[in-house]
């Protein structure tokens, strides 16, 4: 058995998650175009490599070789800092997401999670709320009125939807009584019991959370900060080359994280149906050791979690190519007069049901 130094395993996990986020974001650009094409009766990029699978590579080459452009009168330092910040905040949030249960080799158990903190949910929430800075700073530093308008829209949109998002989360936390994402996941499946995922207990909360996730990631129908019809390119009007690439990348990483969080909070995370039955069946009928069976379950669970995440990413794109963009006043009205009251009602209902003992 190899002896890993303290934090060694975690740094490996973090590195893998980091690489995975980047890889997934890369292929999201491809998936977005293919899905858009399919939804519109086209075939999408299919030239670079088999099925166009090397398209992201070609895009990267294009992005890197384009001219770096600095608009006149721009605040150069902040102009560069903006996309970097967007990327950093996007990458930070995946650290606490539990991507799998534990793998055990001999006496060592390894958790497939970057860091387990008992305020994991707050961490994700905090980092997501920081994400808007990249957009704001970049938009302001461009010295362009369209960029500035995009930045301002991003700020007010994120602040407004964060409220509803936080409140819909509170209902989940009331059920789970913890902020740790790992514990929330483990609670959604208990051995030997008929146990439901949180979506069953929190359908309304999930809808609110999902809508807010769309708004927080600036995706259509809430992509007003980059609304082409009104603002040219929104906050990234003046950006070119890889700085633009970082913004686009950050958006996809945010989608990935939002999907992961939704899967963990509402769809059981790395749990899948009948996992304990499968485990005991393997142990009893095939003479597997408990540890080996558990490891298999863990691996399957991780695969399952990624399938859930991909399903959500697909949903994000599916919605993007279905719904038209909201108008700005509609966006604000939806956020403040519909979602927030709904979230409050949801909290009240949840509290009442908990008191009555219907859900726990």
């Amino acid at each position, binding site marked *: 058995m190899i002896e890993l130094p303290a934090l060694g395993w975690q740094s490996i996990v973090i590195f893998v998650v980091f690489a995975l986020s980047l890889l997934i974001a890369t292929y999201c650009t491809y998936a977005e175009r293919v899905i858009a094409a*399919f939804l*519109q*009766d*086209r075939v999408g990029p299919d030239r670079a490599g088999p099925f166009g699978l090397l398209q992201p590579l070609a895009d990267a080459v294009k992005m890197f070789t384009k001219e770096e452009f600095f608009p006149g009168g721009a605040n150069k330092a902040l102009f560069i800092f903006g996309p970097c910040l967007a990327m950093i905040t996007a990458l930070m949030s995946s650290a606490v997401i539990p991507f799998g249960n534990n793998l055990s080799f001999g006496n060592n158990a390894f958790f497939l999670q970057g860091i387990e903190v008992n305020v994991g949910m707050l961490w994700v929430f905090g980092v997501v709320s920081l994400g808007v800075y990249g957009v704001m700073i970049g938009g302001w530093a461009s010295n362009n009125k369209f960029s500035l308008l995009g930045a301002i829209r991003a700020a007010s949109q994120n602040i407004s939807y964060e409220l509803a998002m936080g409140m819909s989360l509170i209902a989940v936390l009331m059920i789970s009584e913890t902020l740790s994402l790992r514990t929330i996941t483990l609670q959604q499946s208990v051995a030997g019991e008929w146990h439901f995922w949180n979506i069953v207990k929190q359908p309304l909360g999930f809808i609110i959370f999902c809508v807010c996730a769309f708004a927080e990631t600036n995706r259509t129908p809430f992509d007003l900060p980059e609304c082409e019809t009104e603002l040219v390119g929104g906050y990234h009007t003046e950006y070119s080359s890889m700085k633009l690439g970082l913004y686009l990348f950050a958006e996809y990483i945010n989608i990935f994280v939002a999907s992961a969080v939704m899967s963990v909070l509402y769809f059981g995370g790395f749990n899948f149906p009948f996992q304990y039955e499968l485990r005991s069946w393997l142990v009893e009928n095939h003479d597997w050791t408990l540890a080996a069976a558990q490891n298999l379950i863990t691996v399957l669970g991780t695969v399952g979690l990624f399938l859930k995440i991909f399903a959500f990413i697909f949903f994000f794109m*599916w919605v993007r190519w*279905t*719904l038209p963009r909201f108008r700005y006043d509609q966006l604000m009205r939806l956020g403040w007069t519909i979602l927030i009251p709904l979230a409050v009602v949801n909290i009240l209902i949840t509290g009442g049901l908990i008191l009555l003992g219907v859900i726990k």
Partner: protein
Amino acid sequence: MQLTNRAKKLEKKPMTLAERAYLPAIFQGLSITMRHFFMKKATVRYPEEVRPFSPIFRGLHVLKRDEQGRERCTACGLCAVACPAEAITMVAGERKKGEESLYREEKYAISYEINMLRCIFCGLCEEACPKAAVYLQADKIAPPRYERDEFIYGKDRLVEPVSPDARSIRGIQLTPEQADSLRSNLAQQPV
């Protein structure tokens, strides 16, 4: 004022709860796009897959030769007269002794140019030609070019190249003697 009785009276009803909730409409929309996801794609992957030409397609012109490889055009100018876009210009010349195997008629076109930027591919030149010399090919488009003057097609690009041994599109196959004489004709021809 009522012009027709087909006007539809639109009543602005207050929205029902389902309409105001907006979610049902979203799912309806999602199902529509999902249907399209599985539909047959309209894309033609061009270089590998070529869209079939319509049977009456009129494409790039060709100046035909007769079965002995002689140019059919007699520079009568009827095509230029018929052309609504005034795309055709030509210079007529007299056939010299010894050129009988090159040109079918005593008068022939020394130069014959069609400006493909002006041409509207109407096919009137083809209809006007008494010698059945100019045709619009059914399977060839005028390709894109970088320079405008490259669109002025001279005889070098218009006159039908003939390979003596090949069976023509119409299925005419020359006898070996005919092919030989055609080959020698082509050899002495100016480009």
